[in-house]
């Protein structure tokens, strides 16, 4: 078996074979999700708990749908409203849930590393749905699958990641994943939004969007949060859009068949031109959402199989 991880805490802990096995499995689930009966019994009898300590609509819905389509019992817990407000620590909350015997715990938390801490304390598979500015592995995996489906391969591509790299867990997971699969990675953004030590990441860094986009196969735009555009990191929204917003003209520097990606939610007119985001010739933003469900189904199945090899017979 190529997939041995007990948790999905980050891309850092996966090897290229494991990444490929998730993507291969997810490809199968994309087909299932497009068919009339979008249901399987792979996780039937198992319990999945979604613990979101930070607001999320898209990721939580995607995980919920993934679990339900595989036949798991899915429970959502909005942690902001619950016992943390009463002073309970993260570990106590985890132990309480653990006592209910979940099989899969999907966690999003505002602190980097919080999901690692939780995984040490529970005896079920933990999936990181985003921790602080550390990792968001399923997003990187769904981005990888989108690229692989559009380009036919996931190696030796020139891929630009643009925008607020500093505060982006999506960027970190993508840099790790695309690096492990041997792609050329370019980071483009204002110097104030680049993490320290970035030159040691094995990437090329640009602060000019046109120059950075030259001949790339893939452009990944990142969301820039409004509160970071008030002069603290960049002077203003309009200056940012002028220099780093993606539009037709800037995109023309990339390869002709370039694809444009965005993890959402988008700020149209801030980091990306609205019509470009909808341009079916380049934009694969809707595909990212579509394969996101399939990637999460694949990841959950493989984690369960790694823990319970006896279940793996008879899956698709």
């Amino acid at each position: 078996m190529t997939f041995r991880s007990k948790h999905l805490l980050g891309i850092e802990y996966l090897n290229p074979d494991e990444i490929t096995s998730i993507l291969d499995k997810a490809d199968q689930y994309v087909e299932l999700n497009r068919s009339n009966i979008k249901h399987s019994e792979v996780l039937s009898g198992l319990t999945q708990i979604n613990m979101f300590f930070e607001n999320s609509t898209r990721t939580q819905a995607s995980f919920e749908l993934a679990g339900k389509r595989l036949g798991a019992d899915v429970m959502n817990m909005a942690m902001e409203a619950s016992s943390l407000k009463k002073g309970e620590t993260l570990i106590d909350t985890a132990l309480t849930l653990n006592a209910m015997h979940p099989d899969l715990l999907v966690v999003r938390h505002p602190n980097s590393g919080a999901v690692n801490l939780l995984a040490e304390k529970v005896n079920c598979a933990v999936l990181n749905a985003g921790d602080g500015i550390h990792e968001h592995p399923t997003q990187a995996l769904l981005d990888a699958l989108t690229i692989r489906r559009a380009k036919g391969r996931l190696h030796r591509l020139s891929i630009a990641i643009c925008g607020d790299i500093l505060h982006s867990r999506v960027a970190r997971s993508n840099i790790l994943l695309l690096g492990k699969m041997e792609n050329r990675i370019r980071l483009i953004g204002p110097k104030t939004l680049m993490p320290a030590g970035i030159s040691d990441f094995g990437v090329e860094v640009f602060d000019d969007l046109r120059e950075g986009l030259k001949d790339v196969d893939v452009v990944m735009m990142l969301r820039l949060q409004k509160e970071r555009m008030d002069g603290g990191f960049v002077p203003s929204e309009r200056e940012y859009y002028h220099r780093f917003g993606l539009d037709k003209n800037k995109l023309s520097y990339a390869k002709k068949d370039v694809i444009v990606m965005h993890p959402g939610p988008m700020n149209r007119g801030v980091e990306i031109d609205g019509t470009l985001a909808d341009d079916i010739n380049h934009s694969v933003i809707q595909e990212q959402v579509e394969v996101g469900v399939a990637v999460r189904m694949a990841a959950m199945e493989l984690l369960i199989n790694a823990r319970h090899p006896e279940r793996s017979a008879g899956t698709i």
Partner: protein
Amino acid sequence: MRNHFILSNARLIDPELDKEFDGALEIKDGLIYKFHKVTPNLNIKNINCQGKYLAPGIIDIGVKICEPGERHKESFKTAGQAAAAGGVTTMVTRADTIPTVDTPEILSFMLKRASEATPVNISPMACLTKGRNGREMVEMSFLMDSGAVAFSDGDHVLTDIKVFIRALTYAKSLNALVIAHPQEPTLSKGATSTSGKFASLRGLPAVSAMAERIGLERDLAVVEMTGASYHADQISTASSLPALIKAKKLGLDVTAGISIHHLTLNELDVGDYKTFFKVKPPLRSEQDRELMVDAIKSGVIDIICSMHTPQDEESKRLPFETAASGAVGLETLLPAALRLYHSNGISLNLLWKALSLTPARRLGLPGGTLKKGAPADLIIFDPKLPFILDRETLKSKSKNTPFDGQRMQGRVLKTFVAGEEIYSS
């Protein structure tokens, strides 16, 4: 006669003479009475050191006792037991307790508690400003009369430079030592790591090593202006060293310390968010660590301390960003420091300068030497004895050590304070 004995067959380290030699030490009335090259035939108790090392006890600047206020983390009694087991014969205590040590009354109360609870010497620091709030200076003269050996707001940086200048000017008039934490607080606020590749990959809020230099250069400008005696509690990055060297060349009354953690660990030890490695300032790069070891060798950094900071399990069992900072160190200071002897070419004499002699001189304390008339604050230790540290065996009430499970070499066999044996392994 009471308290009259001889420590024979020892290998002595006297950092003041900068020598190691064999012999025996006669102890009388709590003081070092006489050195004997050959053990004389006296009719007194003879403790045979069996060729092991005999050295002045460690004087540890910056120990947090947690009493008053947080006795569940550490008390005078447990800190004293830990110190004795670690070969620390004088704890220079921090003032960042609850309440802070900022009046002579609290200081006197604290010293009374300490004397009842532990035989280890306590030399207290007092706050530089009331409540460590950086606004009004404390009653320095009264506090010195009550026993304060230095003034420090701990890791609170005085941001109002006017207050800082006045406090140092006033301290200068009393010949008082001010101990500060060089750091630019607007940069370090909320930071848990040193900025660089590791912190960026882990997604941890980080501070540039440059924040220490910015803070230090500011402090040194004020020292130059006021002529005060100044000790930087922890210098941990290479970028701070040129300013320090320059200040010493100018003849300013400046010394610098470093915690043993910054000399023996680096930022990568945090691994997957291990909170026992969260200290303040954060652990640095391996390159910085190596350069700090060199700075000990060259004497640019003068003093090594444990920065003993007990934290209970609850304050460490949290996500890295929200977990408390600090590590216990009284019992691991010596074995960790011996790593520098075993692996980094630092002699025992040099180590003892940084652990005992220089702290004593800096604070005006009598220890750190084996000369006649010095207090018999002594330790017998074996630098080679190997062991694996198990944090549950620590005598500190809190067990937050970064060395848990690690192989260490070197242990204290006996500790004496004022000629009384207070620890035996």
